């Protein structure tokens, strides 16, 4: 059922043709701005890349998740979904999946663009880190998007709520990407201290928290 919700969302977005190109455009423009704002060259490019990556990702995420529940609110379809046996948890899971997919699509544009425009060394480790972080960020972003959509000040509340909760992901993910890009090895850390493991732990933890909270956010 969650899959059905996800599929419906994705199909809507693909059909609508407004969000994906807009996100892609945003990403490329952000990179161009970064290039000039930071005065990047061969040396500073790779050094600043981790920061730029996460900055762009966070803002793209805010845009994507803001949209996730905007249509639902406009068309009143959230209520229609709640009246089915699907249950708030599945509905939430579906929307989180769809949002995560959108964010991944965004990354598919971002990472190669960074490699090309900024000369960032994108490796498997970088991709894996970003993907893992996306999972957790999507879950939480979706939860707060649903929450903010029900209030009068959606655009204001979503960043205020989402950014603090994304900080751990950016901190750990940022360090991991930085290490990967500068060739630093983190193998000295114990397994439980490995960034990918930590990110996975975060993902699981917040997935549980969000699933429990979804019921209260979506339904009265």
């Amino acid at each position: 059922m969650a899959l059905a919700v996800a599929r419906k969302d994705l199909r809507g977005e693909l059909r609508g043709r407004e969000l994906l190109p807009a996100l892609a455009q945003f990403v490329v423009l952000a990179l161009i701005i970064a290039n000039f704002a930071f005065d990047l060259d061969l040396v500073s490019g790779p050094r600043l890349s981790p920061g730029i990556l996460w900055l762009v990702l966070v803002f793209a995420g805010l845009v994507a998740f803001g949209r996730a529940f905007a249509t639902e609110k406009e068309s009143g379809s959230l209520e229609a979904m709640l009246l089915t046996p699907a249950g708030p948890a599945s509905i939430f899971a579906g929307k989180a999946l769809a949002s995560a997919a959108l964010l991944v699509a965004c990354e598919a544009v971002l990472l190669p663009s960074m490699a090309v425009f900024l000369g960032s060394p994108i490796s498997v480790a970088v991709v894996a880190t970003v993907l893992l972080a996306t999972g957790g960020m999507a879950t939480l972003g979706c939860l707060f998007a649903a929450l903010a959509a029900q209030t009068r000040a959606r655009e204001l509340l979503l960043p205020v709520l989402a950014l603090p909760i994304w900080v751990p992901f950016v901190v750990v993910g940022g360090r991991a990407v930085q290490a990967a890009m500068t060739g630093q090895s983190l193998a000295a850390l114990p397994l439980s201290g490995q960034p990918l493991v930590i990110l996975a732990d975060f993902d699981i933890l917040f997935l549980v928290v969000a699933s429990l909270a979804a019921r209260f956010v979506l339904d009265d």
Partner: protein
Amino acid sequence: MTENRRLYVLTAVALGGMLVAAGMIFLYAPQDALQGPVQRIFYLHVSSAIAAYACFALVVAGGVAYLWKGSLRSDRLARAAAAVGLVFTTNAFVMGMIWAKPIWNWDPSKTWDARVTSTAVLWVVYAGYLLVRRFATPGRQAMRLAAVVGIVGFADVPIVHFSVQWWRTLHPGRVIDAPGGPALPPEMLLAFMVTMLAVLLLAGTLVAVRYRIEARRDALEERAVAAQLKLAASPGSR
């Protein structure tokens, strides 16, 4: 009116406590050899931070109790604690910055350690909590959504702390600080304990006062509602 009297007594005791603490900080505790007189700010700074976290615990407890049992009083407690907590967090943060300036010269690589970041995040979570309360439909929706914010925030703050600590262990050359040095001389320790108790008492008093205010506000709302209902029930409308 005994309700009011109790609050007055409580406030008086709290203020008295703060005066004693002030005395201890400035007159009793010795000056720190390394950091100079600025170090005295740390007593209030740490106490404020502890008070801020204690208030947050109340916010979360209230939120959980509300979601579980639908208790309006718990929500009221959460509301009250949130307002007070925000103040103490701001205080702790500002004091931290003032203290850090001469010590670290606001070097970003040293300023954003685990505690500072967690406190900053706590502040934003508080702000988010209060904003959600303001912008959601008043009544059940506001209480419900705010409770969720509080709970998720509660899970988040320790995670932030942990992740920044993790980050710090990889950052070379970081000096782990302990205010006043690795071991506090007994006078300082005593001053600190007294201050902490005084601040906690003050925080508790503020929460109690705030709770009263909210209770009165709720009562006013109930009366407005009852008036509307009575008006509706009068024979003229049928």
